[in-house]
C-alpha cells in the first residue's frame, strides 16, 4: 500500500494554497454570526456589575415592556439546569443563572430576547438590578484566598534539590510574574439555536463541536442524536472555544422558551468576561549551576488564579521538569480561587507563562557564569525524557539551536551588555528554547469514494485557522492516489465522525492518523470487493501489495496490473464505498519511547531607544521541530502567528482588573493592546528534524509552540542591550526608560 515515505509522492509537505482560500477571500466562508434563520430573533445579555455578593432584586418589567421584546429571563425565571459533563479538559462551566449569587464581574444575570439586536440591546439596558455586594477576592496573593495544591497531580520531584544547590557555584533565585491575558479571537463568539421539538441545531464559535453536542444534550436532557452543532468556520479561538460557555447554554435556553431561532453575539467587552482568559501567575524559580555550566538543581514554584466554582488546566511550573537534563529538580503548582471570570486555555496555556520564567532564568545563569546562553542550553540538553527516562520519539532541538543560530547570525553577538549599537539604537540578541508537551486524544474519520472517482473525507473537527481543511485534503489525496481537486475534506459538523478539540496542538496528529487509517481501510474495501473478481487485475491482492496512484490501484511490483476505482465501482454496481478510521495516542511504555511534542529555538533581535524607552522587535528566527510538516505554507503561518502571539504576550497584553470592583478596566480593542501590522517585522521560520516515530503520519502539532519562548527571548535580548532584567510581563516603556 502507499506509504508516506514514497519519494515519488509530492502532495504531502508541499506548500499548497489553502483549499478554503477562495471562500475566505471572497466573503463566502460563513462564520457562526453570518447565519440567519427565518423568524430568527436576537438575544442580549445583562452582566453583573459587581464581582461578589448577591442579587437583592432584579426588575425586568421595564425591559419586558420595551418595543420588540419577547422575553427577559433571569435566575428567577430560568429553568433548572444541570451542569454540563466532565470532558477531556475537565469539568464544564457551572450552569448559568441558577441562583442569586454573584461570583465574578460580568457574570450573566439576565438574557433579553427581542425581534432585532438593537431592541434586545436597548432592553438589556433597562433591566434594574440591586445587589448586596460582598468583598471580592481579586488579588492572587490575597492570603484569604483558598489555595489548591498540586491541582493536576503534575508536580515533579527528582534527586535532592538542596544538595544540588549546595553543589552549585552560581545560584539564580528570582520572582517572575505574568498578567492576565485575554484570548480575543477576532470573531465575536456567537451562538444560534433553532429547536424543532426536542431536537436542536446550534451554530457556535467552538473549537469542539462534539463537546457542544454532548453538553447541550446533557443539560437539556435530550438525546445526543437530536443535537446538531455546526462550525465550518470559526473566527479564531486560541483556546476560547474549547469549553461550552454559559452564553451558548443561554441561547439554547432562550430559543426553547420563545420557540423561535435565537441568535446571540457577544460584545467585545463580554469577550473579556465570558469565554476564558490566560490567568496571571507568580513564579519563583531557582536554578543552580557549576562554574563549568552544568545545571545542578532547578526549583520552580508557580501559582495562578482560578475562578470560585470552576476549574482550569494551567500547570505553569510542570513544563520545567522536561526541559533540561538536571539531576535535582522540583516543580510545584498551585491555584488561588478568586472572584474572577473563569480562566481557560489560551494559546500555549501554562507553557507560555512557565517558559518565560524558566528561559529567562537560564539566561540569568548564563550571564552569571559568563557563558554563551546557547552553549549553556546545549550543554544541559536532555537527550532522554528526564521524567520517563525513555528516548524521545523525536527530538531535533539541537538542530533547531544550531540551524537557527546560523540563520540568525548568533555568532555575531558580542556578549558584553550594551556592546551592540546601530546609531542611536541599542541592539540586543536573545534566545530561548522550547520543549512543548505532547498531547493527543482519540479521533475518528470517514473516507468515501464516489462513482465518479472523487473522494469525500470527513471528521467533526474544526479549522480555526490552522489549515486543517487543507492538510487533511492533501493527506487523503496522497493516501488514495488522487489529485487534490478530486478530494474534498469536510469538517465542523457534529454529525460527522467524532473529533476531539482543536487544542493542545493535538488535532493534526490525531486527525491525520485517523484519516490515514480511513483511507487505508477504504483501499481494503476495494480489494475486498475484487477478491474473487476474475475481471480484476487486482484479484486476491493484499493491501500491502498495492499502490494507489492516478485514481487507480495497482500492484506495486507491476504497475500495469491495476484498475481505476471507478471501474471497480461500476462493475460491481456500487454508487460509493466508505470506510472509517480512528486513531488512539501511543502509549510511551508500549512503544518504549517518550512521545514528543514540538521543539523550538527562538532567536530575537531587539532595538531599544534608551532615551525614549522604545522597544522594537527587529528580527525573529524560529527554528521548529514539528515532526512531519504536512504543508510548509500553513505550518509556517502557524509558527508566524504563534510568534506574533508571543510578541504580544511579551510587549502588549495585560487585562487590567480594577482592584476595588473586579471590573475589567480595559475590555475594548481600543484599550487592550495587541500588535498591529507596524509592530511586527518580517520573520523567518525554519523546520528541523523529520517525521516523529510515535505515530504513522509522524506530525507534531505546531499551533502553540511558536508562541512559547518569545517572552523570554525578548526579555533576554533586552538584558543584552541594556543590562536590565525584566521579570514582569508585559515589558512596557516605563520599565525601559534608562
Amino acid at each position, binding site marked *: 500500500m502507499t506509504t508516506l515515505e514514497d519519494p515519488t509522492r509530492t502532495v504531502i509537505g508541499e506548500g499548497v494554497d489553502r483549499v478554503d482560500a*477562495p471562500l*475566505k477571500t471572497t466573503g463566502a466562508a460563513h462564520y457562526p454570526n453570518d447565519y440567519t434563520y427565518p423568524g430568527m430573533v436576537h438575544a442580549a445579555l445583562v452582566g453583573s456589575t459587581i464581582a461578589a455578593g448577591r442579587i437583592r432584586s432584579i426588575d425586568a418589567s421595564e425591559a419586558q415592556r420595551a418595543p420588540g421584546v419577547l422575553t427577559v429571563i433571569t435566575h428567577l425565571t430560568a429553568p433548572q439546569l444541570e451542569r454540563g459533563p466532565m470532558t477531556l479538559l475537565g469539568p464544564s462551566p457551572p450552569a448559568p443563572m441558577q441562583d442569586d449569587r454573584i461570583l465574578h464581574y460580568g457574570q450573566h444575570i439576565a438574557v433579553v430576547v427581542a425581534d432585532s439586536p438593537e431592541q434586545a440591546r436597548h432592553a438589556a439596558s433597562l433591566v434594574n438590578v440591586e445587589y448586596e455586594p460582598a468583598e471580592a477576592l481579586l488579588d492572587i496573593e490575597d492570603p484569604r484566598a483558598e489555595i489548591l495544591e498540586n491541582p493536576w497531580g503534575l508536580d515533579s520531584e527528582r534527586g535532592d534539590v538542596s544538595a544540588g544547590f549546595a553543589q552549585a557555584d552560581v545560584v539564580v533565585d528570582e520572582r517572575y510574574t505574568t498578567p492576565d491575558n485575554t484570548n480575543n479571537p477576532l470573531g*465575536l463568539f456567537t451562538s444560534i439555536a433553532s429547536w424543532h421539538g426536542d431536537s436542536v441545531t446550534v451554530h457556535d464559535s467552538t473549537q469542539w463541536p462534539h463537546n457542544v453536542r454532548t453538553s447541550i444534550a446533557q443539560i437539556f436532557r435530550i438525546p445526543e442524536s437530536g443535537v446538531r452543532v455546526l462550525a465550518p468556520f470559526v473566527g479564531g479561538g486560541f483556546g476560547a472555544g474549547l469549553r461550552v460557555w454559559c452564553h451558548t447554554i443561554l441561547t439554547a435556553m432562550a430559543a426553547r422558551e420563545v420557540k423561535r431561532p435565537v441568535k446571540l453575539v457577544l460584545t467585545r467587552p463580554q469577550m473579556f468576561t465570558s469565554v476564558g482568559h490566560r490567568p496571571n501567575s507568580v513564579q519563583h524559580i531557582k536554578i543552580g549551576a557549576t562554574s563549568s555550566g552544568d545545571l545542578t538543581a532547578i526549583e520552580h514554584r508557580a501559582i495562578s488564579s482560578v475562578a470560585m466554582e470552576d476549574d482550569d488546566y494551567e500547570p505553569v511550573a510542570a513544563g520545567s521538569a522536561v526541559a533540561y537534563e538536571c539531576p535535582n529538580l522540583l516543580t510545584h503548582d498551585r491555584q488561588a480561587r478568586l472572584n474572577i471570570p473563569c480562566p481557560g486555555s489560551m494559546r500555549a496555556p501554562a507553557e507560555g507563562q512557565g517558559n518565560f520564567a524558566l528561559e529567562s532564568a537560564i539566561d540569568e545563569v548564563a550571564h552569571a557564569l559568563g557563558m554563551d546562553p546557547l552553549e549553556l542550553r546545549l550543554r544541559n540538553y536532555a537527550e532522554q525524557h528526564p521524567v520517563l527516562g525513555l528516548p524521545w520519539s523525536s527530538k531535533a532541538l539541537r538542530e533547531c539551536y544550531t540551524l537557527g543560530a546560523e540563520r540568525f547570525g548568533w555568532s555575531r553577538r558580542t556578549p558584553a551588555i550594551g556592546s551592540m549599537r546601530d546609531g542611536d539604537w541599542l541592539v540586543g540578541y536573545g534566545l530561548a528554547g522550547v520543549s512543548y508537551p505532547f498531547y493527543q486524544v482519540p479521533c475518528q474519520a470517514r473516507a468515501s469514494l464516489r462513482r465518479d472517482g472523487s473522494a469525500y473525507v470527513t471528521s467533526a473537527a474544526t479549522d480555526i485557522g490552522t489549515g486543517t481543511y487543507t492538510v487533511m485534503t492533501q493527506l487523503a489525496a496522497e493516501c488514495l492516489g488522487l489529485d487534490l481537486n478530486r478530494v474534498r475534506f469536510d469538517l465542523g459538523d457534529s454529525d460527522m465522525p467524532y473529533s476531539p478539540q482543536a487544542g493542545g496542538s493535538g488535532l493534526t496528529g490525531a486527525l491525520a492518523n485517523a484519516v490515514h487509517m480511513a483511507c487505508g481501510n477504504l483501499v481494503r474495501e476495494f480489494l475486498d470487493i475484487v477478491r474473487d473478481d476474475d475481471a480484476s487485475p487486482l484479484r486476491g491482492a493484499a493491501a500491502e501489495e498495492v499502490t494507489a496512484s492516478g485514481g487507480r490501484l495497482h500492484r506495486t511490483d507491476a504497475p500495469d496490473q491495476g484498475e481505476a476505482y471507478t471501474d471497480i465501482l461500476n462493475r460491481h454496481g456500487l454508487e460509493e464505498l466508505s470506510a472509517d478510521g480512528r486513531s488512539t495516542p501511543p502509549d510511551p511504555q508500549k512503544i518504549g519511547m517518550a512521545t514528543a511534542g514540538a521543539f523550538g529555538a527562538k532567536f530575537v533581535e531587539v532595538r531599544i531607544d534608551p532615551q525614549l524607552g522604545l522597544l522594537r522587535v527587529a528580527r525573529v528566527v524560529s527554528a521548529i521541530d514539528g515532526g512531519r510538516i504536512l504543508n510548509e505554507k500553513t505550518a*509556517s503561518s502557524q509558527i508566524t502567528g504563534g510568534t506574533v502571539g508571543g510578541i504580544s504576550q511579551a510587549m502588549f497584553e495585560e487585562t487590567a482588573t480594577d482592584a476595588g470592583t473586579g471590573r475589567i478596566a480595559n475590555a*475594548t480593542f481600543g484599550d487592550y493592546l495587541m500588535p*498591529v501590522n507596524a509592530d511586527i517585522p518580517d520573520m523567518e521560520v525554519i523546520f528541523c528534524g523529520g517525521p516523529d516515530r510515535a505515530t504513522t503520519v509522524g506530525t507534531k502539532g505546531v499551533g502553540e509552540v511558536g508562541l512559547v519562548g518569545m517572552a523570554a527571548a525578548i526579555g533576554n535580548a533586552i538584558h543584552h542591550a541594556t543590562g536590565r532584567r525584566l521579570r514582569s510581563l508585559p515589558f512596557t516603556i516605563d520599565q525601559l526608560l534608562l
Partner: protein
Amino acid sequence: MKHVDTPTRPGEATSEIPDVEVTLNVNGDPYRMRLDSRVTLLDALRDHLGLTGAKKGCDQGACGACTVLVDGKRIVSCLALAAQYDGREITTLEGLTDDGEPHPLQKAFARHDAFQCGYCTPGQIMSAVSLQAEGRAGTDADICEFMSGNICRCGAYPNIRAAIRDVVSEANDASV
C-alpha cells in the same frame, strides 16, 4: 430597485425609535430600505442585505474587520449609521470580484497565505484596495503604517504585507 423592510411582528407597538428610509447603493445595486435608525451600516449590510462579507470584530471602530469602501474611500462600517449613507456608493468584499474573476488582491492573499482564520480578511482586503488608491502602498513602511488599522489576531501581518507588495509590483510591472 430592491426593497428590504425591517421585520416587525403584527400587533407590535411600533418602536419609539423612529424608522428611517434609506437607499444604499451596494456593489452597484440600489437597495431601498426601511430601518430602525440605530442600525449601523455594518448591520444593514450583514443583517438586512445578507452581505456577510464585512465582519464584526469589535463594533467599536477599533479592529477594521468591518472595513468597506464608501465612494471609493475606506471606512469602518460599524461606526457608521446606515441612515447617514443614503445615496452613497458602497463597495463590500462581495463587490470586488469582477464577473466571477477575483480581484488581484484576493488572489494574492490566497497565494501568500495572508490569513489563518480568515475573519479579518475581508477588512484587510478592502483596506488594501483602498491603500493602493490612496497611493500608500509604495513602500513597506507605508504598508505597515496604513494597514495598522486592521487587526489580525492570528498574526498574518508579514504575509498580508507580502500579498500587497506582490500586487503593487505586478501593477507597476504592468504599467511599465
